[in-house]
């Protein structure tokens, strides 16, 4: 087991290295000059050139890459061109909102979608199943921002139940914190509920077709027991897997949701950094997201051991 964890952690190193190289090349081979942006609208060409030198952008790409990687291995993500503070600090500042949003979303989605999926599988082909599948396809098809606008308009403006925008830190009190997160989380959850409910339904459906379900019924167990202890327990691996995959999707959704609800999270940071050509920040954030993705998938892999005793590493 420990052996496996060590091996898996080591295996993430080349993945992250590839991410690092890809991201770096992606950025440095592009047009757009961060120095010109920093200098402001009325800056002269000479001023821009001097800023470029001060940022080290005049060096050959390979040298820039070497310097960056050199810092990276010591855990230094560099300093933001745009904000002039350490990228690591910047990420730390923006982490709480994004983490809160993501956690609440996943929590809410799982709590809602797994029971729905199980019931749909149990009543396969019935009206509930059809309705859920219909909703699920709809959930995949509505752009996140359209949904966000509709929700804001109804819930916040017309009904006045929740704030229209913004984020309150958990340190400012739990209720305001939650109040500001409810709407964004629901917005973001829809696609997840759709996704997880689909997978839950499909995998529960699959395990319902297995022999051990017939055995469980032949034992005279109640349907609820059959569904939860036998069907769902065996369907757990794909469900957990899709939650892991969903993290990647979530990051995409976060970018949009944070934009609409004015949440100062990592998604906004990315968009701002891209628009400002703030290379160190973009590199740092993408690397961070990749790390999260890889880490979550590692956890998912490890969770298999607990979900399915047949899996041993």
């Amino acid at each position, binding site marked *: 087991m420990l052996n496996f964890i060590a091996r898996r952690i080591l295996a993430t190193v080349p993945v992250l290295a590839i991410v690092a190289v890809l991201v770096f090349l992606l950025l440095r081979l592009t*047009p*757009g*000059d*961060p*120095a*010109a*942006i*920093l*200098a*402001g*609208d*009325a*800056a*002269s*060409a000479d*001023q*821009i050139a*001097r*800023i470029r030198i*001060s940022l080290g952008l005049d060096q050959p790409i390979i040298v820039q890459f070497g310097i960056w990687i050199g810092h990276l291995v010591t855990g230094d993500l560099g300093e*933001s061109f*745009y*904000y*002039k*503070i350490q990228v690591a600090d*910047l990420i730390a*500042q*923006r982490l709480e909102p994004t983490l809160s949003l993501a956690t609440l979303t996943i929590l809410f989605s799982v709590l809602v979608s797994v029971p729905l999926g199980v019931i749909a599988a149990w009543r396969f082909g019935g009206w509930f199943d059809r309705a859920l599948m219909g909703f699920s396809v709809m959930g995949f098809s509505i752009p996140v921002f359209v949904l966000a*606008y509709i929700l*804001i308009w109804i819930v*916040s*403006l017309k009904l*006045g139940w929740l*704030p*229209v*925008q*913004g*984020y309150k830190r958990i340190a400012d009190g739990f209720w305001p914190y939650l109040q500001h997160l409810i709407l964004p989380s629901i917005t973001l959850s829809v696609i997840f509920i759709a996704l997880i409910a689909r997978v839950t339904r499909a995998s529960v459906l699959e395990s319902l077709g297995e022999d051990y379900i017939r055995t469980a019924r032949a034992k005279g167990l109640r349907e609820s027991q059959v569904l939860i202890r036998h069907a769902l327990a065996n369907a757990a691996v794909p469900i957990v897997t899709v939650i892991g995959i969903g993290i990647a999707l979530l990051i995409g959704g976060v970018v949009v949701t944070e*934009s*609409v*609800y*004015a*949440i*100062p999270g990592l998604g*906004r*940071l990315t968009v*701002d950094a891209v*628009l*400002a*050509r703030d290379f160190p920040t973009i590199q740092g954030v993408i690397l961070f997201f990749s790390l999260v993705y890889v880490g979550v998938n590692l956890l998912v892999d490890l969770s298999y051991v607990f979900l399915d005793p047949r899996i041993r590493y």
Partner: protein
Amino acid sequence: MNRNIVVAVLLAAAAGGALAQGEVLRVVPHSNLSILDPVWTTAYMSRNHGYMIYDTLFGTDGKSQIKPQMVESWTESPDHRLWTFKLRKGLAFHDGAPVTGEDVVASLGRWGKRDAMGVALMTFVERMDSPSPDSFRIFLREPCGFLLEALGKPSSNVPFIMPKRVAETDAFNQIDDYTGSGPYVFKRDEFKPGDRAVYLKNTKYKPRAEPASGTTGGKNVYVDRVEWNLALRDVQAQSNALVKGEIDIIESLAFDHYESMSKEKGVKVLKPTLGLQYMCRFNHLHAPFNRAEVRRAALAAFDQRQFLKAQVGVDELYKPCASMFTCGTPYASDVGTELQARSSMRKAQDLLKQSGYDGTPVVLMKPTDLQSIGKLPDVAGQLMRQAGFKVDLQAMDWQTLVSRRAKKDAPSAGGWNMFCTAWVAPDIWSPVNNAALDARGDKSGWFGWPDGPKLQELRSQFMRETDEAKKKKLAEAIQTEAFQLATHAPLGEYVQPVATRQNISGVIMSGLANIYWNVKKN
């Protein structure tokens, strides 16, 4: 006993909480604040940040007149070459240290390396010194006609006064000590880039007695804390938040929301007195705009009303103004503006034919992420097409545009022919600081690089002229020559409305800069 301590702590915490609440002014600025050095960058957000925490020697009042601010009094030698300034009493930095002439000299020195007008001024300055802690002197090589205008410059880059130790930072590196002597203190530990910036009332600040006007007068602070919400950038969300009272001020209300917000209860919409000017800039280095005839044909096609109606749309927020210097300011006039003031498509078509335009497409850059100027290139493109130009409208985000416009390469090699932008009045209202009139060919300070020796000569004379009447005449000549040369196309003026909650009063709507002293929240 323990319980008592707990209670005491709780009480203290509650009190602290209440204290922190205080009177908080929640502002949504027009953009993101990233750079905290207002001398290093020309970005307006950095300038506004500067006004919060720094004080200035002179200021510009609501009537565009230069008025002393930190300066108590000053004298000018008869040959106009020695200027002696005396500082007001009681000026102090946030750390308690008094503001001295040394600080001023260092601050002006750094500013003189960065700001276009500052650089121009420094060509006149022989040296500066501080004979006593409360005074400083400027020695000039020859008389200079815009010394006070430069020192009282209301917009980027403003000569803010910093402590000497900070001002000694290399002009090309950013400062990292934000000690000023202005009406607010920057709360550095609460600054979250892209999220919020926080300013606390500087309780030790001694305002002038005069009423606040423009960037001058008494900088009285009536709130305890100003919070800039940097995260709220979706304009619909901004308006929603203001309607729901989640914020107090929207610094830059979208034109599209002007009418609906004016009708909204609990909200009021303010219009500044001075407007901004739209302009389209030609690249003089490359065909087809390397020839004045072609540029003039484009000028003739540009009917300002079309731009203004499309971009602003609300009648009461815009007005055409053919002058290169903001209408309503001292040097504005209509001398030499006929080509644009009486634009006509027919004339444009004729001019273009006469010019022998060979059909070279015009690479017109359009910013996709700036609401305030995004529609200008579309209008320009449509008008130029109607006049007979071939137009290659290329959309890109503002940052790409900004880096691309710095390139002198041919349009086919990643360069450009034309872009549009907007200027606040104080940045263009004088022939000295109007960057678009710098006509030193490819040495020009601003993008487009017009080559106009005659224009350059006139500007040089203007800078040396100290007589106001003669300066006006020179400004007229400069404007005539600029239109002849067709350096750029002014596209008319608009005002940027500000929306506040009903309970907000005292917002200074000069149009010079966004400033937050004098604001009351009831």
